[in-house]
């Protein structure tokens, strides 16, 4: 059973949220009671593939390594439904990153200098990397999405380590600021209407 239907099941049985259960005080950190974190699961990749993907993440979003993005990617792709639909593509892409690197420079992708890595990634972005049953452009788009998620997502998923991504943008998506309403009412600021 997937997480969603299991949740439905549990909630249905326990009747959570029945009348009268509405909390009076709102927890500022609502996410403290969020659904349980994902089970880490087994990595869908071998060490070589992981290394290539980690290097790609770092080029797609510099600082990805520090933020824990590669581990985030690993964990996400280990679970349903990504394990079925996306993990094989990413495994394949890791192989292609290395084979392209070896062809052009005689080294694996992770060992190339940044410019050479960018050139190879640029070919994925442009859809110029061709291989049987592999589509480079959709892979690249997914890679960017996962990098952004791992950098800016809730740290409970294993990325955005020590909220480094949120500190970078200077914007804490979980903030909750009653002061904002206070300041509006205290000043008696007239509304435009």
């Amino acid at each position, binding site marked *: 059973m997937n997480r969603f239907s299991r949740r439905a099941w549990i909630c249905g049985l326990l009747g959570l949220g029945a009348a009268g259960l509405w*909390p009076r005080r709102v927890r500022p950190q*609502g996410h403290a009671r969020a659904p349980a974190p994902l089970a880490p699961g087994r990595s869908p990749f071998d060490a070589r593939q992981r290394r290539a993907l980690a290097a790609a993440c770092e080029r797609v979003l510099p600082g990805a390594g520090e933020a824990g993005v590669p581990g985030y990617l690993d964990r996400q792709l280990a679970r349903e439904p990504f394990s079925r639909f996306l993990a094989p593509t990413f495994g394949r892409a890791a192989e292609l990153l290395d084979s392209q690197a070896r062809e052009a420079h005689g080294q694996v992708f992770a060992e190339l200098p940044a410019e050479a890595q960018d050139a190879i990634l640029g070919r994925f972005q442009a859809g110029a990397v061709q291989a049987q049953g592999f589509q480079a452009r959709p892979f690249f788009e997914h890679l960017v999405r996962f990098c*952004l998620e791992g950098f800016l997502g809730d740290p409970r998923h294993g990325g955005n380590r020590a909220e480094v991504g949120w500190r970078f943008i200077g914007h804490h998506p979980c903030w909750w600021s009653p002061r904002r309403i206070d300041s509006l009412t205290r000043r008696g600021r007239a509304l435009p209407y």
Partner: protein
Amino acid sequence: MARERESVDVVVIGSGAGGAPAALTLAEAGARVLILEKGPYYSLGDFTHDEVSICRRDFWVPWEHLDPHTIRKGAEPEARVTREGWVSQCVGGGTVHMSGFFYRLHAEDFRLATLTGGLDGAELADWPIDLAELEPFYDLAEVRVGVSGQAGLNPFEVRKRPFPLPPLHPHPAAALVDEAARGLGLTPFPTARAVLSRSYGGRPPCNYCGFCGEYGCENGSKSSVLASLLPPAEASGRCEIRAGCMASRIEVDGQDRVQGVVYLDAQGVERRVQARVVVLAASAIESARLLLLSADGRHPHGLANGTGLVGKHLTLSTFGKGTAILDRAQVAARLGADHMDLPFLQRSLQDDYWNPRLGAALPKGGTHNFLLHHPNPINAGVRMAMDAKWTLWGQPLKEALRRYFHDELWIEFEVFGEFLPVPGSFVDLDPRAKDRWGLPAARISVAHHPVADDVNRLMVRRGLDVLEAMQPRPVKVYPWAWANTTYHLQHGTCRFGDDPGRSVLDRDCQAHEVRNLYVTDASFMPTSGGCPATPTILANSFRVASKIAERFRRGEIARGQV
């Protein structure tokens, strides 16, 4: 098992905008009501700002391999599996994660066929009721859920009563939109919101966190039916909400009177509940699907479908969007630095709602809703990468993110317009795709009327004119989408009307062919209207429920043993 022979007065299928008002009204009128809701029952603590879990996975809508729709756009020969066409699956339905921009329909919406004299290729129909009949129920809906707004500033809208709550505080940049729009001869007005500006009915006021659309409100300040209507329904002691339970068939007796509902409970076990009245409110697409799934020997084409009209006349909403990127420092220099982090812009235009001078073959447009770009950081990054056709990555992407959060202010508008009913837009059962329970999925066919697309383009152009006229001048203004569709807004699959040969439901939203079967989501709407329809769905559900309650009172529908 006791439940096998369970009997109630009313079964409501779906707990969203269409289901909750009916359930509340009928429970308050003394009926025993059971709500069957397919999705989970979330509580406030489940609503976090975790963008990955809440917005980007299956919190609201299951993955498509478990619960698919299929879609076929335009001339595409084959339908493909999609996640489009679901609003939300949880107690409270789509009202839980809506943004809560609340607009009423206008008088023109009820008589589009007459006013236009018809339009080639469009299957327009007047409504059997008029705005005056719905108006008191708009008032009632606003009071019961809690809507914030300022009456009297939208010259195109008919309303006699004030809003129950004053408007939310707008971001200072609302003044820029006002000034630009007025300079173009337009009439901006503050957008009404299903969000509390003050404490109301035991619920706290909005904390201005800005995480409305695609999130649940952890504060209980968003006026979802989960926060507003379902608690008193349950507190009546006569309404039970059974979550995780999917209705799979509606049953009728030999006289075509509704008899009850078959559903799959949370463990996947098939159960049956008898009912005097069934109120179907599973969303326009899913309600049509359930009627089709309820085919039997005597109704081979589905329930209430002797005319073949169930699923026909599907309308969505035309959609367009434009963006202006402003320099935050310039805006602050003009307006002052105070309150620059407020999340709501709160401005709308309806000058093109009915505008013969629009320059299109149809004077019927819709609504411009001006808003600030959503504070979701992942979404912002993906949006920027996407807008650059994925050439934005690496250090430039990081730099763009930094600029977005530190230096820029993104003001956008969304256009919602009339989606003309055409023969190519309908819902039927997919011959192949099945859901996790093995039931055929809904297949959605979508065709656009070219005139609706023209109108949408003109409206997007109008929105861009407003953005371009703002002072300080935006660094960049660009159209993001036009002549597009949003599947979040869906209507029309079981039209109501007075002619049983041309409509599925009567004017009280009771099926012409099945006694005591009512449909109260947006299926009844013969035309889509030019704005998001949630207030209309709520109001109509209150209206229909008052008719059903009246029938109970008159003894026309017997009440079961309690």
